[in-house]
């Protein structure tokens, strides 16, 4: 697969930037002419990953989010969301539906479940004290 375009975005992990992140990724995919459903899937998954960084990664509320988007062969989209926050030990555990370390009143524990369902592929790497990297891929069918 040949990389046809890519963008690196670096943002502070503050509430509100999840909205920018999903809009930016959607704008970056627009030239691929995705369907409305595909673009919404991508926006939803990006919103989950970036919100996780904002909510969970930095208990002292100061840190950064890196969002890297790569397009291969003008049709495969890869999104990587990275933080250097608290991380976690067991990626399989946190990916389970309803698993959350916040009160269920606030957070449903469905973030990873949604990322997995809305994208074709999800990879989660984390190390306690070092940070977390979430990589998601999706094939975009051309509609132009």
């Amino acid at each position: 697969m040949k990389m046809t375009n890519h963008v690196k975005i670096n943002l502070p992990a503050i509430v509100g930037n999840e909205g920018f992140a999903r809009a930016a990724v959607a704008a970056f995919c627009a030239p691929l002419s995705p369907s409305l459903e595909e673009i919404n899937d991508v926006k939803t998954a990006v919103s989950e990953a970036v919100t996780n960084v904002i909510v969970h990664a930095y208990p002292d509320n100061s840190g950064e989010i890196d969002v890297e988007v790569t397009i291969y062969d003008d049709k495969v989209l890869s999104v990587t969301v990275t933080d250097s926050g608290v991380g976690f030990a067991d990626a399989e555990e946190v990916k389970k539906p309803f698993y959350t370390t916040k009160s269920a009143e606030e957070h449903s524990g469905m973030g990873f479940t949604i990322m997995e369902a809305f994208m074709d592929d999800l990879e989660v790497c984390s190390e306690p004290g070092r940070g977390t990297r979430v990589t998601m891929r999706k094939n975009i069918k051309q509609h132009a």
Partner: protein
Amino acid sequence: MDFSTTLNRGEIVIALDGELDEKTAAQTRDYLDKRLRESTYHRVILDFAKVSFMDSTGIGVLLGRYKKVSENGAELCVKNVNRQIDKVFRISGLYQIIKAV
């Protein structure tokens, strides 16, 4: 997020307008809880016609309200969810406890 509420014979309809995510979650929670405290009702319908986007943060908001409403012996429903939000509801299983009307 903007809100408007109509109350008719114990049925509250609350229309939301905006994106329901981490940025608007606290404000939405506060608005809904205030309305639910002020009224007596047997059914609460959230009108999503003008909600353009919702992620799992919204699920958390809805689950919390579901708990309060059902502790009051009443019912929480949604209507007019768009396709993106419908998919979030379906994948998360939320329709099992919050019906679409």
